[in-house]
């Protein structure tokens, strides 16, 4: 993956953001509340997709348990808002708690210099354990403050976000749409800015060649920990939005199925871009909804098949492959300096 070229320059970020802002402004006036509600969940999941897309595509961290931070965000918000009524602190907590969890887990993994293989297995195990733990908290004795954990029943009737300081002014469906879209754009912009900064360059360099980055004096563990914690924070924020969208959260949010879905979004959409995971997420979410309306094919079956096919045949994902295709169609000179002169003179397209 290269830092140079259109897709990573500020131009592409500006274009994407401009497009996003236009859609954000325009869509609520043309769509009805119900469609906006449907779109909101796609947007919330896209934030989650971007969190994994960042840590995996740019920092090289393959986390099999990104759902853990998503779930922690949702549950933290739910429990905190039930106890505190005003949603401002719960919103902040839904970012901070998953971030702290990611920081501790990341510290153990990166400062322990555990290899990538262990990373996958450990993050998978953590999300499974969280699932089992929360799933078994159904009894009334399981509560934090006033909030019962609910076990496999989940936590229903989660109070929605309100304007800070004003408990009665809660967010509307339109407001949720705007907020989710806004968060997605803000996260995108923030990450693009980070990637362009020195920290971002170092993070990518570490993914390219950790040994060389360390020989230059960069502490790879610290940079990876930072990226991983940031990814956890973003996933937690997505979790808070999710809890608001459905006013409900349950342990399946920590499950293997959820973790698998996030990975599939990123693989299908494309590793190495931020837009790719969003595209993959929306496509797969849409597909899953379609599958839900018929009986023949089970969603596991379809998603599993998609994952296998993509790993074998479209390993770079849709967005980068599309980008390659467009580049080949529009480029008039080959990129590699080693190309023989003759081909250039033939005006190869």
């Amino acid at each position, binding site marked *: *993956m*290269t*830092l*140079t070229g259109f897709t990573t320059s500020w131009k592409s970020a500006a274009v994407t953001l401009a497009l996003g802002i236009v859609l954000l402004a325009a869509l609520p006036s043309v769509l009805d509340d119900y469609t906006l509600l449907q779109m909101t969940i796609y947007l919330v999941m896209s934030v989650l997709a971007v969190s994994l897309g960042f840590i995996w595509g740019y920092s090289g961290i393959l986390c099999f348990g990104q759902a853990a931070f998503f779930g922690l965000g949702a549950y933290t918000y739910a429990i905190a808002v039930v106890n505190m009524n005003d949603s401002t602190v719960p919103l902040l907590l839904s970012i901070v708690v998953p971030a702290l969890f990611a920081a501790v887990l990341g510290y153990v993994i990166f400062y322990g210099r555990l290899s990538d293989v262990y990373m996958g297995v450990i993050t998978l195990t953590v999300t499974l354990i969280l699932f089992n733990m929360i799933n078994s908290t159904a009894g009334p004795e399981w509560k934090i403050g006033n909030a019962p954990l609910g076990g496999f029943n989940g936590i229903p009737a989660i109070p929605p976000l309100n304007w800070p300081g004003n408990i009665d002014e809660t967010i509307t469906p339109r407001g949720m749409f705007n907020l989710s879209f806004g968060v997605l754009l803000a996260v995108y912009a923030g990450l693009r800015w980070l990637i362009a900064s*020195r920290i971002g*360059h*170092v993070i*990518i*360099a570490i993914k*390219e*060649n950790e*040994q*060389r*980055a*360390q*020989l*230059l*004096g*960069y*502490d*790879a563990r610290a940079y990876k920990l930072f990226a991983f914690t940031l990814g956890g924070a973003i996933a937690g924020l997505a979790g808070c939005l999710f809890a608001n969208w459905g006013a409900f959260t349950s342990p399946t949010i920590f499950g293997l199925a959820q973790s698998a879905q996030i990975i599939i979004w990123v693989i299908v959409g494309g590793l190495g871009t931020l837009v790719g995971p969003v595209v993959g997420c929306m496509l797969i979410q849409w597909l899953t909804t379609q599958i839900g309306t018929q009986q023949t094919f089970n969603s596991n079956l379809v998603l599993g098949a998609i994952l296998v096919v993509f790993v074998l045949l479209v390993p770079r994902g849709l967005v980068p492959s599309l980008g390659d295709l467009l580049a080949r169609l529009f480029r008039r000179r080959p*990129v*590699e*300096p*080693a190309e023989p002169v003759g081909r250039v003179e033939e005006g190869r397209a």
Partner: protein
Amino acid sequence: MTAGVTPLLQTHDLNVRFGGVHATRDVNFTLAEAELRCVIGPNGAGKSTFFKLLTGQVKPTSGRILFRGKDISKMQPHDPGRLGIGIKTQVPSLFNGLSVWENVWLSARRTNPPKIANDVTRQTLERVGMLADSKAITGTLAHGQRQWVELGVVLAADPPLILLDEPAAGMSDAEVMRTAELILEINRQHALVVVEHDMSFIRMIAKKVTVLHQGQVIREDVPDRIMSDPLVQQIYLGKKAH
């Protein structure tokens, strides 16, 4: 070595054992500021292990390593770079997906603010002759060019000590000459330890040569006396003459 001046690099009775292999034996090595030393030895002599000790990839079983008087025997992988030790590895270790400019810039930027880092990057690329190719993706370059990029990456951090592991490997004769000139020019302000096999290359640059054999230092002298030393000739017996 002038009395009273702290050497740049010094090892005291350095030993490394891996399982049953005694890879480094009682090595006492001293390097002054801005000194150029070549290290030679047949395969298995312990040259790579010695380098890995200096870069923190291997920890000594016993003995100490001092850099400007400071004990660096137990280093984290990112410490050598921070302390002022630059390493050019045997197989060029670069950020293959990034451009030549970006590779050198990452090195320059670690200790310099952005504007100065840009200047340093440009100057360094000019020095190693890669400024014209600064936009090329490093992974697409030929081997000799990659060696020079890596030299640039190391130089951009301006380290007092530079370790070069076989810098002339895989190069054409012209490239080898260019590399020798570059090393001598670098030596005006930096100390260098060069591990090499190519004897003619060593004669171009070396003032003092350390010979390793089975983990031990067996000779340390000027190149001419090393070449005519009977023990050195014996351990190289059967090896291809360069």
